[in-house]
């Protein structure tokens, strides 16, 4: 069993598991942190951005006037943002049989994998994962396509040039593999390959393995996967949460007794407790509004935003913010808010019960009804006429490189009354803000990451007790910035197997058994004989038939009667008589009893010699040796066939025959 690791990002994994002749891709996360190296894409012409100076190397030798701009001491690529794809060279992607998706954040690279690689397999995901994932992809495409950039910068990727660049650009890896966003057509094509599954549904793959998704508690429809054969079980844990937020709670018990547990998607903010962050979010929001400022919340259009809205719903009245408008701007805002209300079976129990009541499960419906929360596809159109300040705006993209958020950054950045509150943990907020410097607006970092933290995961592992744990190498040592925090790493016995981008791991267990079926008529012909109480043995002669990873023993077909040959008649040789198989022997020859028997048969002069494997009996008078070993008995006797036969019979007396 092998694991190919195509992504180095611990929360946006992309791994391929080769298991029992199947090739299974586990998630295909898209590492979008690469976009931080690009200039923001403004919706409206931004004089500030367009006037940024070009970057020129110190000696003036390199001048990429069109490609690189300088802002507040950092260099950005002026081009359509590009993403860092999963590794494509490690194995032939067309050989992948299935792709298992665990949640909608971990499927953003899907079109890159399924399109133009020769992929012919199936993708499995739950319904909310597919639908919300589609929304997120649609949003991404929309963000990119509505601000087209003619040129694609490539010169800077030249190794010689890149080496001379400053800052993070110089250290960016695999820049040649970075790709621009896919198109809507590719999204549709990729998503057409998705087959929907429900929690605990068992899907057979080629008869060899069975996969089934389990609730992971992280987001709507998020799942962990169990991949098992009759004798082996692999669990894939990705983005799970034990907190009681909106999704269905995590199913932990089904993860028990795994041979291998692949652990990815732990919290990216192990030191930030989500409850504290949520409280911090609310108080900073209230503080800004009271002081007359606006609040900007860059966020994804699904996920944590539901919890944020719910929390705000309770907080609004407390903090007397009843009159402040809340705006949610995203190309898919409407669908996202509506979808969340209809995926009843994927919600936590508390919300599930509300689906059948007049009251909608999420309180944001009430916020919308009372006009406290308004949503718009973009800043153009209705929004511009409804817009009232001070207000709170939720909009994407959290990287601040594209989407409507760029506009608000340009609009509000200059006033210190306004606040930007980061809640998504995927991007470093300092890097995200870099192209907007100098910035007067207040900035608050409240990353809300509900995924498992190290404390929870060690409890979980103690409970489910997998034999081996595989995880990204980042989890096996404390974070670089907090090297003394030994509590922020996985400590297990035996230690977990770490992986990084491009590693290929040999998972430490071998297939030891296969299940084989016996046809009834064959089974009927068996004659078992008991060798120990409760254990019977029988010999069987049959033909092994293997198809679709199922093995069956069938009776030996009778040789077909020789076809009467009319053309030529030949004296056929008698077909060789198939000798009845000799009985199989089992058991051991007890030395004392054997010697006694020999004595009874007149052989008295026996010299017993002990060897490493058994004994050698020297029959001195007969000049014969009998070697009694664990797995064989030899009688060495020259030219005395009668003696050999009688000795053989004596030995056989002590053995069992089948």
């Amino acid at each position, binding site marked *: 069993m092998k694991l190919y690791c195509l992504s180095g990002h611990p929360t946006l994994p992309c791994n391929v598991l080769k298991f029992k002749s199947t090739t299974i891709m586990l998630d295909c996360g898209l590492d979008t942190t690469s976009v931080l190296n690009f200039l923001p894409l403004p919706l409206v012409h931004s004089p500030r951005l367009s006037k940024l100076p070009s970057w020129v190397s110190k000696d003036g030798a390199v001048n990429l006037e069109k490609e690189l701009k300088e802002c507040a001491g950092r260099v950005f690529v002026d081009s359509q943002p590009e993403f860092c794809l999963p590794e494509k060279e490690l194995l032939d992607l067309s050989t992948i049989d299935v792709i298992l998706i665990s949640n909608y954040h971990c499927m953003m690279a899907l079109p890159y994998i399924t399109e133009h690689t020769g992929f012919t397999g199936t993708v499995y995901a739950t319904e909310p994962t597919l639908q919300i994932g589609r929304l997120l992809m649609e949003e991404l495409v929309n963000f990119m396509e509505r601000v087209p950039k003619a040129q694609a910068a490539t010169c800077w990727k030249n190794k010689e040039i890149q080496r001379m660049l400053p800052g993070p650009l110089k250290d960016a890896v695999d820049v040649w593999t970075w790709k621009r966003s896919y198109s809507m057509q590719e999204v549709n094509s990729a998503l057409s390959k998705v087959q929907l599954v429900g929690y605990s549904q068992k899907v057979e793959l080629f008869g060899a393995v069975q996969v089934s998704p389990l609730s992971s508690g992280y987001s709507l429809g998020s799942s962990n996967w169990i991949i098992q054969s009759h004798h082996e079980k692999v669990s894939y844990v990705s983005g799970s949460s034990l907190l009681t937020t909106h999704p269905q709670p995590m199913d932990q018990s089904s993860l028990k007794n795994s041979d291998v547990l692949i652990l990815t998607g732990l919290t990216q903010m192990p030191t930030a407790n989500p409850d*504290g962050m949520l409280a*911090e979010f609310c*108080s900073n929001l209230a*503080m800004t509004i009271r002081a007359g400022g606006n609040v900007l919340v860059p966020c994804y259009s699904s996920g944590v935003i539901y919890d944020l809205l719910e*929390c705000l719903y309770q907080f609004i009245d407390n903090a007397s913010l009843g009159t402040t408008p809340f705006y949610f701007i995203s190309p898919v805002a409407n669908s996202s808010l509506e979808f969340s209300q209809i995926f009843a079976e994927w919600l936590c129990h508390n919300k599930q019960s509300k689906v059948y009541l007049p009251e909608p499960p999420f309180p944001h419906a009430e916020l919308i009804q009372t006009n406290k929360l308004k949503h718009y596809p973009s800043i153009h159109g209705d929004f511009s006429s409804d817009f009232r300040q001070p207000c709170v705006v939720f909009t994407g993209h959290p990287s601040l490189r594209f989407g409507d958020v760029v506009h608000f950054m340009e609009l509000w950045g200059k006033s210190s009354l306004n606040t930007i509150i980061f809640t998504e943990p995927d991007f470093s907020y300092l890097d995200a803000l870099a192209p907007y410097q100098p910035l007067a607006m207040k900035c608050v970092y409240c990353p809300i990451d509900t995924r498992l933290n190290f404390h929870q995961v060690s409890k979980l592992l103690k409970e489910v007790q997998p034999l081996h744990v595989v995880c990204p190498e980042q989890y096996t040592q404390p974070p670089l910035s907090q090297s003394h925090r*030994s509590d922020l790493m996985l400590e297990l016995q035996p230690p977990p197997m770490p992986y990084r981008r491009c590693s290929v791991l040999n998972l430490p267990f071998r297939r030891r058994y296969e299940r084989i079926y016996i046809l009834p008529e064959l089974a009927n012909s068996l004659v078992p004989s008991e060798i120990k109480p409760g254990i019977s043995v029988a010999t069987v002669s049959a033909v092994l038939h293997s198809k679709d990873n199922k093995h069956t023993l069938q009776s030996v077909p009778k040789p077909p009667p020789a076809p009467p040959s009319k053309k030529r008649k030949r004296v056929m040789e008698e077909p060789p008589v198939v000798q009845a198989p000799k009985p199989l022997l089992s058991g051991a020859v007890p030395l004392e009893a054997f010697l006694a028997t020999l004595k009874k048969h007149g052989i008295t002069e026996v010299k017993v010699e002990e060897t490493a494997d058994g004994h050698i009996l020297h029959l001195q008078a007969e000049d014969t040796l009998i070697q009694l070993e664990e797995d064989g008995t030899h009688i060495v006797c020259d030219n005395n066939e009668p003696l050999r036969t009688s000795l053989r019979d004596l030995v056989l007396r002590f053995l069992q025959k089948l």
Partner: protein
Amino acid sequence: MDRGECVSLLPRVCEVLRDSGRSLPDDTSLEKLLDWFSGLTEAGGSLLEAHPCLLEFISTVVNKTSSDPDVISFALKLSGLIAATEDGFETLQERSVLDLTFNQRHWQEAGLWEDPCIRIGWIQGVRSMLQHSKALGFFVQADFIVPLLQLQTDSSLFVAAAANQTLAHVLLFFQPALSAGCNGTVKSQGSDTRTREHPGVTTAETDHDYSAVLVAISEYLKGSLVRGEENTRLHQSRQILKLLALLLARAAPPLRDKLLRTVADPLEELVTAGCSRLMPPLMDIVLAANSSSSVPDQRVTRLLSSMLNTNKPADRLRAAAAFLHSGHRDTVHTVRAVRILLLPLDIITGQTLLGADTSEEHRFSMVEQLKSKTTCVSMVCVCLTNTPQITLMPPDLLPCPLVVIVSAVLSLLRICCGDSSSGGCAEVFRNVIGSGKVQKCALEVLACLSSSPGVKDELTEVVTVLIQYLNDPDSDPTVIHKSYQALVKWMSVCEDLSSVTDLLRRDLSEVVRKRVCDMRWEVRDSTVEFLGKLAAVPKSAEETRDGTWPGSCSSAPLLREALQDPESYVRASAVAALAQTLARGWQQGAALTQEQTDIVSRLLEILSQDTEGFARRAVLQYFIAWFSSRASHTSPPSSSTTSSSSSSSLLVNSVSSILSLGSADLDWEVKVHTLELAELLLDEALSGHRGYRKGPETPPAPLHPYAVVPDRTSTLRMQGAESDSAGALSDLVERGVVSALLSGLVDCDRPVGLKACQLLITLRDTICPPPLETLDATPATATVARVSCELPACGWGREIRKILGANKCDKAKEADVAGETREEGKGEGNDGVSVCEMLRSLGLDARLDVLSQSSDHVHNSPLSLLQDILTASAAHTRQDMQPGQEVIVDCY
């Protein structure tokens, strides 16, 4: 007054108890009865003389073993109580009751000894009896010491504890008289009863009895302690150790020496055996032995040393803490204890608290213990809670300067937050990171350390760490609360805050503004409270002018916002904090600002509309604070002279609304506060008047209205004062003070009525002239008498009128219907009632008597108890059935 009735009822009660003890009204009746009897005995009376029926009762009960065990137990205790006096003892012995009563075999044979309540009755009887040498003689003769020692390890904890107490009592009470030098000690240790009752009774016989008891107990102690190491004996060992601690704490030197000589070796054996569960009682013994002697005993010192050297870090730490708490100042051990207690802090933070000598022998075992989460947190907390005590030590006993301890605590606080630049023991970090318990302890310590000498240099660091805690989203509300407290403490102690000006102005005000909006009301509450306290911190004028202070100017808007908080506690705190913030404005008598007007109207709104009592109470306290600060800062009051735009006039103008709203409130505490405000107004109006005594603690003014009140100042200005009186009185009426008091008087809540009654009496005695017909009326007194007030037609007005009417009827002994109707007609006609006349005819003094008694005084009287018992038994016999369910509790 009901003593006679009690005497007549008691025989019947005894009869009931004898016959049917089970039908008691409740299971505390017998206890109450016993309390009453012991009260009578303590008052010096003879029980048997007063209630001869008791003797009969006891002898019947003890002879009839079929009685209820509770009643038998009661009889046992009662006999002990009676036998406590020599006369009683003799009477009981003459009637040969005593022998049978305390004959343990008698009860065993009856199969009653199994019942713990019999055993406890026996022990307590013996204990009460042992007050004189005759009783001791009886005790020794009957060989009670053997059963008593057995009971010491009884399965019932109550029995065991009582047996312990009794054993200690015998030894301590009868310990031989001392030479003159030590007499004082003994007296102060509570054996004065004995010296009073038996002055100088030390017969040879008593001595003999005593030494017999002493020998028996010492032998027992010695024998049991040695065998005490097994686990099964743990209970016994613990009991014995407790007994020893009791004895050693109060024993005079000869007895103490004797005891110590007996037990020192076994004790040391126990200490070296190192049983953790015996450590606390062992430490008690050592401390008790230490406390009772001025010169440290060699044996005790040795014990202490070995306890401070045990191998188990947790035990060692506890021993050191206990030693430090005992207040002994034995240099060697103090130094040792301090080092033990500071060791965990030293290890975790890596600060060299214990000097360069880190080769502490116990360091390694301590590190091992600290690596385990549970022991780590508790040990660090023990270490922290004792740190303030440590800082009070003379500097030469400390291993390091105080400032190092402060910086170690700061370092610990940082580690708790997950930040550790200091090089402590990284393996221990994970145990304290995020531990709220450790954080709270450390913050408390930090607050305490603020006043230690020489720590001011750390101010910047302290403020930085505290602000970090306030800012940390993971901080628990209680942690935030403690951080605020510590911050206030440090800021009020440090005169020079210039080094932290920036931090305060920028970071602190930022974080406070955020916390005021927190989701958790506890946090908002502590923040608001903090703002109030901050305003109260004394500060130099310079800083106020600079505006470096984050208090007053910037906090008032936040507090005003908090007045609308959905949580009533926060609103209440906001009101209180506003009072503290604005106090400065009142004192300076500055011109009225719009802000003040707004706040006052907002507060009146809260008082009239808020649904929760807390907020309304706070509003009244706000005005009380304002009023008292005004009273103490401005020259004597007169609303007319202050300029109409000053804050003072605003206050005066709002007073009558506050009084009327406050006295109509539903919450009794609000009403009491209203009366407190009224009291302040009374103070103000009456100060300088003849016979006025201020303050709630003063007893109600002289009961006799004609009593001559010696007053040096007022006699000369009598005339003028009384004309003032009229003015003051009408002023009080006008402001609504009199109405508030009257409505309080008829309030259904006793505290309100009491307070109002006291104030009305004060008013009456100060201002109202004696009735006209008894003294010649001066024009001035006539003016006072003419001051009148109106009574509303309903509510409290009607109540007052009822009282007035009833009193009048009583006095005139006439039931003239026409007269009453006329009077009511008078009230309804909005005609005023003369205040003085009303005050005189309300019967305030009688009312005060009634109100001063606690509401359950009738219920708690012995008479009521006896009646209850009789009634319950009557009900019981009549219905002739068992009470449904009985709850039997092991409680004696």
